[in-house]
């Protein structure tokens, strides 16, 4: 790292910052922190300044040979189920302090700032439960499909694993993602602003396959009820149109069985629709002829409007994007350095057509590069080159989906929906890079 091109910009607390204690970049980083002046950081820098005396010579770098090149490594199979490197120990889901009263009805956010590409590692996919996470024995789990069907059916997991299957990559976003930002910026990092978001390759049986298997009433069936086997018995109404289109009764997540946090052994996957409709620990589907008006469709997950009314059945997650690096909490070094701006875009109505980037708070825009694959109702990774000139910058991304819809500004959303609606905040996010390179969550 020490020999990198000095013109290449570096981010202090970010993937590029694999620094050695005695390294040149570390000293420059300390300089940056000291000029920052924050008491906390300064205190840490003082501690750090004492370290070099006892620091061993950097023999791990050329011409030295590091110990791992001279020592027999661990045996194959030392970790029969692999885990991330110990150095990745701080790449974890986090709960936002003070957000929820209990740890059972709560949420832990995906660390979007740490991730690459479009697939969320299974252990980092955000977790939102309503009455705690059950541990379900798959051999004793059953899916009941009944209501307006010719033959009500009870499926075992083995039955479901034998039925024709599909694997598809889709995002899951909580309807309340970015909820804390409706009134004003209130959280520091993209993990908290946008981290109720994940994207996986989901495997399972198309719901339409099961509906046909049970002989659903094609004339009368209008809405389905999906119910979880958790203590919440969480229920949501699913329209028959979605059910026959692309809804999956899923047991697989990125090549393995679902994680318990994502509904092991069975969940619903309703592409493009707010997270709560993707009912986890799925135990029952009832075919009906009218919406079910569940508690999670009235008391919560309905959008409060300025006139005091509530919008109900707000299923679709509209097009949204966010820059994940540079993002809140990071610090850029090297004024005049090159930085790659990168982030994620997605739409519940189709695929992403274009993502634009602004570094001046939305005055001027240019198109970012989209990384393939660009899939329907899936995260799309975008990238743009940026050379920071060292002066304050306001970074924004704005996406356009396959319907031509353009991601709105926060004030445009507020003009129509006010500030109390909690759900469906898909506004453009602004990150301020200040003159010291520190990145902050702001609104313009």
């Amino acid at each position, binding site marked *: 790292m020490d020999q990198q091109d000095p013109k290449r910009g570096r981010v202090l607390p*970010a993937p590029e*910052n*694999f620094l050695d*204690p005695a390294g040149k970049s570390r000293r420059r980083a300390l300089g940056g922190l000291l000029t920052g002046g924050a008491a906390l950081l300064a205190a840490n820098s003082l*501690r750090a300044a004492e370290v070099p005396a006892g620091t061993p010579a950097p023999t791990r770098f050329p011409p030295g040979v590091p110990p791992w090149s001279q020592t027999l490594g661990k045996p194959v199979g030392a970790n029969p189920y692999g885990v991330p490197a*110990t150095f*990745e*120990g701080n790449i974890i889901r986090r709960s936002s302090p003070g957000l929820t*009263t*209990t740890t059972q*009805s709560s949420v832990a956010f995906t*660390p979007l700032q740490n991730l690459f590409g479009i697939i969320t590692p299974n252990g980092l996919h955000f977790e939102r439960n309503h009455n705690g996470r059950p541990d379900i024995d798959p051999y004793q789990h059953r899916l009941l499909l*009944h209501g307006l069907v010719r033959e*009500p*059916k*009870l*499926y075992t997991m083995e*039955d479901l694993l034998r039925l024709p299957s599909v694997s598809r990559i889709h995002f899951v976003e909580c309807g309340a993602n970015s909820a804390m930002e409706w009134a*004003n*910026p209130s959280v*520091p990092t993209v993990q908290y602003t946008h981290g109720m978001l994940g994207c996986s390759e989901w495997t399972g049986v198309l719901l339409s396959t099961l509906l046909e*298997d*049970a002989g659903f009433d094609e004339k009368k069936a209008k809405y389905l*009820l999906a*119910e979880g086997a958790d203590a*919440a018995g969480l*229920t949501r109404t699913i*329209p028959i149109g979605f059910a026959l289109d692309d809804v999956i009764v899923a047991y697989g997540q990125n090549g393995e069985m679902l994680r318990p946090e994502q509904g092991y052994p069975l969940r619903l996957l309703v592409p493009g629709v707010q997270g709560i409709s993707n009912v986890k620990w799925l135990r*029952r589907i*009832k075919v*009906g002829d*009218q*919406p079910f008006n569940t*508690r999670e469709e*009235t*008391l919560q997950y309905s959008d409060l409007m300025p006139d*005091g*009314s*509530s*919008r*109900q059945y*707000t299923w*679709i997650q509209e097009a949204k994007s966010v820059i994940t690096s540079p993002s809140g909490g990071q610090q850029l070094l090297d004024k005049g350095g090159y930085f790659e701006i990168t982030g994620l875009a997605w739409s519940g*109505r189709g695929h992403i057509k274009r993502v*634009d980037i602004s570094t*001046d708070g*939305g*005055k*001027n*825009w240019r198109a970012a590069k989209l990384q393939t694959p660009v899939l329907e109702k899936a995260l799309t990774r975008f990238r743009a080159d940026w050379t920071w000139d060292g002066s304050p910058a*306001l970074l924004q991304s704005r996406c356009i989906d396959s319907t031509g819809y353009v991601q*709105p*500004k926060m004030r*445009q959303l507020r003009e*129509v*929906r006010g500030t109390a609606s909690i759900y469906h905040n898909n506004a453009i996010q602004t990150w301020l890079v200040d003159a010291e390179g520190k990145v902050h*969550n*702001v*609104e*313009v």
Partner: protein
Amino acid sequence: MSRSERIVGALAAIALLVAAGPAAAQSKYHLGQKATPEQIAGWDIDVRPDGAGLPAGQGSVSQGNDIYDAQCASCHGTFGESNTYLALTGVKTKLNYATTLYDYINRAMPFPHSKSLSADEVYAVTAYVLNLSDVVPADFVADRDSLPKVEMPYRDRVKPYSGLMSVDGKADVQNTACMQNCEKEVKVTASLPAGFVENLYGDIRDNFRGLATMNKLAPPVTSAPVEVAGGLELIQKHGCVVCHAVDKKIVGPAFRSVADKYRDNADARAQLIRKIRDGGSGAWGTVPMPPQTEPSDADLATVVEWLSTLPGEK
């Protein structure tokens, strides 16, 4: 087996094949069983606004009062006013059908042991909560006929919103894809208050790669206290964490506060076990702790042992 028995057996087998025939022809996978009415009845618990799904039974406001005080008040407040847990004010100001209240209490409440109330009890608690919210009079009796007829104050204000109900629904807020000179002036209009992040989130530098674990100069991760095996699992299993957290007050005191209070008391363990078993109020405020009859003596002993190992609050 006699000849006649064999014939009967063969006939029965043929009858079975015939019976299975049409269904098998319709379902090409031959997977899954036909669900019996009894099986469906056990799980078919949803209740619709028109009352479909409401079971037989009934419950009055006064019956509900007793159940509520024993099973609900500790979280929701004696008058549904709690601001720790969801206040029940939403029943009046956001809920459109009383049937949904029944459905939810029946499937998801009480929080630590859901689906434990009988139909009569759910009707009674529903009636009481509706009365607390001034929606029904004190002599209201909830049953499958009366509940769908309750006029919720907010009913007409909850409306399906077609814009987000289908992929091609019309968007209500649109931006334009302007590329040059799109804003006259750009100003930062809102940001996080100074000190906010440090106070609430601590040092967030370890939220990124290259710190804490990878950068040896970063502040050390605070080590967790040594814990008695099983204590944490048991407070989850028995639902203690619904009202208590290790280091903060929720409805009841923090476990560390309890540990502090009994730290120098020789008889503390027996006393604590008794208090958990019998419940009570007064020691930590007026909110009563319900009696805990379910955990075994061994589990309570483990929990109390675990409590005694918690570090003090300071």
